[in-house]
């Protein structure tokens, strides 16, 4: 184990973020994701999910004095540059008409750190193949990405994210455009990945099904972080109330339920 492993995978300390002064999208967010956790962050549209993702990826930063974000014990931008964070885009954000094979897509980010004149070393090529196999796409590795179904494409994107050997995997609305069967397979794939690689997985979605199947911890985000516990504690009332932006009182009553890997107030200084 390297010395970095003592740092949590993600830590947000008192983070407030506003695109326009006076109307924060995220307010006083405190949470820590320990390594190896599978955390689902559920929230309504406009609840600040994509802003949270951008903060973790280092594409946005909190204004001075508005809290701190750290990923694997370093600045998010640095973790991103070192490709320690694997990202799974929404399927609809991808140009699937591109004339690329499954293998070319899967190997895309793993080779980004190389100089133009270098070709990918054996280790990297083997890892790409291993990940294609892990997500069950070995038979389709030479097929054009546009020929695949939504669920299959998503598996390829997982392989691509994993091929760069990340320690944290971020999934952005993974169920959008995927049918029921594809979703079930996807959830079992996430369990396999977690068991085999032991990496931290963070899923952000507005769809409970995306999260319930593959996560051992759940948080609910709607401007503030309302709830976090094991999935069993998430009752229909909680969800109904969150999606009406009226959960605060209920959520506080639920704090401290059971053993959490997700801790509120995770500031480490």
């Amino acid at each position, binding site marked *: 184990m390297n010395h970095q492993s003592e740092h949590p995978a993600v830590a947000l300390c008192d983070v407030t973020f506003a695109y326009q002064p006076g109307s924060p999208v995220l307010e006083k967010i405190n949470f820590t994701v320990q390594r190896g956790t599978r955390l689902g962050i559920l929230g309504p549209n406009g609840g600040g999910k994509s802003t949270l993702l951008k903060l973790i990826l280092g594409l946005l930063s909190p204004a001075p004095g508005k809290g701190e974000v750290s990923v694997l014990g370093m600045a998010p931008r640095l973790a991103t540059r070192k490709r320690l964070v694997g*990202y799974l885009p929404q399927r609809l954000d991808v140009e699937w008409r591109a*004339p690329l094979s499954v293998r070319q897509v899967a190997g895309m*980010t793993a080779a980004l750190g190389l100089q133009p004149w270098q070709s990918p070393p054996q280790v990297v090529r083997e890892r790409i193949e291993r990940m294609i196999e892990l997500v069950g796409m070995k038979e389709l590795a030479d097929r054009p990405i546009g020929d695949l179904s939504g669920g299959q494409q998503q598996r390829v994107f997982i392989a691509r994210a994993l091929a760069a050997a990340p320690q944290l995997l971020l999934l952005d609305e993974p169920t959008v455009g995927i049918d029921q069967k594809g979703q079930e397979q996807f959830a079992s794939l996430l369990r396999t990945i977690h068991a085999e690689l032991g990496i931290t997985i963070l899923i952000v979605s507005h769809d409970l099904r995306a999260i319930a199947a593959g996560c051992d911890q759940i948080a609910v985000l709607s401007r503030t972080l309302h709830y976090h516990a094991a999935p069993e504690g998430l009752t229909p009332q909680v969800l109904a109330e969150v999606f009406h932006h009226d959960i605060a009182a209920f959520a506080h009553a639920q704090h401290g339920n059971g053993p959490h890997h997700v801790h509120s107030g995770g500031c480490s200084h």
Partner: protein
Amino acid sequence: MLAWQTLDYLREFAFARQAVMAGVLIATASAALSSIVVLKRLAFVGQGISHAAFGGIGVVAILGLAGFAAELVIFAFCLASALLIAGLSRARTREDTAIGIVLVATMALGFMLLGLRQNLMQWDVYREFLAGSPPVSGWDAILFGSIMVSGAAGVWMSAIVAGLVLLGLWWWRRPLMTYVFDEKTAEAAGVSTRAMRGLLLVLLALVVVVGMKVVGVVLVSALLVLPGAIAAQLCQRLVPTLIVCWVAAILGVLGGLVASLELSVPPGPAIVLVLVVEFAMSAILRRRR
């Protein structure tokens, strides 16, 4: 007899050989970019950039510039308009609106400066100022190309641009491929999407500056769009796509040049029409499958 005349021309006249060489080089450069133009929906941006060349031509004409300085001014105009389009689209204007505005602004400026040059000619001071500078090519040459007069300099220019475009695409192939495929993952992997878009705009501007000599300001975006569109009909893999783009562009340029020499029609529109026929054929072929 068709094609015989073309061979005679090629044997006898350097200008015909130079036209073929410049045409092949420019076709290579634009074909290399074409797939990305189609995938990233840059067709209309290309249109905006190429019309901006007209503003550059106006400045070149009124200052009596020639040679490399002239090319540089036109390139600067294309690049500046590309950046202006990008800058405007980031603010409150939509990209198609931004292109619409920049396109007409630079074209109007070009026309106005060319007209002004005409008027200034009645002053001796201005005529002395222009002394030794080359005459301005006619409207039709600017609008629809004049590859037959590209000369040795045109061949060199095309070679340099083709080299730069191919080198740029190869050098940045990995971040560029990620950026073209999905911007969000590129960003999340530390690729600067602004830098990638900037790179594409610079390469587009380079191709436009030399491409407008072949097919003219109005039609240069045909070279950027049609090869990629044809390949998209026929291929789903990277290497075949690049090959089809290249072959389609070369066939278009050579076919157009032959038609131009045989039938004594202007080469620019002939090249574009050959490319359009190729596209129609590729669409029919795809339907048949």
